[in-house]
């Protein structure tokens, strides 16, 4: 087994285990932390695919910002044990398992058919900051600038959501919620 194959299977196993923990763990704190682990494994796979820039951005933005935001919310909500544990009802779990297996079978068949066309050798592109940045600031300049508008709209939306709740005096239904 080559070193690349070893790393692929190692990080693939880590990614699958962490994803299962995201779905199956009962405590929301463990869910969020497993997603952090899954993002790190995914980033390692990106780097294995020589997409260095995207891999680093994934760690910075996802593990660094988004999931810490999740953790803040989990802590702020101060969920007690009954609200925290998501009680999965048996029938929903069965339904979910059946749909998941069927879904994966479908994807597997689609990939098998697709791969019959012939195996592609890996190309020699390297997604470094230089190459990605060159394309980002020439061909994709307009979408890149538009994302700033998207972020601005998101800020307005969140502020208006938070302010609306405060100014209209939406009272918490239970005392001591916050």
């Amino acid at each position: 087994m080559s070193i690349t194959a070893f790393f692929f299977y190692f990080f693939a196993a880590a990614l699958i285990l962490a994803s299962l923990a995201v779905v199956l763990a009962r405590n929301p704190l463990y869910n969020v932390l497993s997603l952090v682990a899954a993002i790190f494994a995914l980033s390692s796979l990106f780097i294995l695919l020589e997409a260095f820039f995207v891999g680093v951005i994934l760690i910075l933005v996802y593990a660094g910002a988004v999931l810490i935001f999740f953790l803040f919310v989990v802590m702020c909500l101060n969920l007690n044990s009954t609200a925290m544990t998501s009680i999965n009802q048996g029938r929903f779990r069965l339904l979910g398992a059946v749909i998941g297996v069927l879904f994966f079978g479908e994807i597997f068949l689609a990939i098998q058919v697709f791969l019959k066309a012939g195996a592609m050798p890996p190309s020699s592109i390297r997604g470094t900051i230089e190459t990605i940045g060159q394309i980002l600031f020439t061909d994709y300049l307009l979408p890149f600038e538009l994302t700033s508008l998207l972020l601005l709209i998101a800020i307005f939306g969140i502020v208006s959501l938070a302010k609306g709740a405060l100014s209209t005096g939406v009272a918490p239904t239970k005392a001591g919620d916050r």
Partner: protein
Amino acid sequence: MIGLGNYLILSGIIFSIGVVGVITSRNMLKVLLSLELLLAASNLSFVAFSRFNGDYTGQLIVFFVILVAAVEVAVGLAIIVLMYRHFATIQVDELKDLKW
């Protein structure tokens, strides 16, 4: 030899796990986390295709997906906090009323 198929199968496994999570979770936070898994799986297949096709476009799309996912999470979590303030729960099936 690790080929495109290995990455696509892995992406399919992660996507299926995420679908199961979205269906079975009753906790709003877990639904959002499972949505992140779905995005991660599609990101993986984008990067794998980019690598094996020799085209940088896939990696740029992943860059934009990460940006949009950050926005989605911010708005989603704001809604969850509002929901918790209003209903004192974040169970999805408590939301039976159309009007607050």
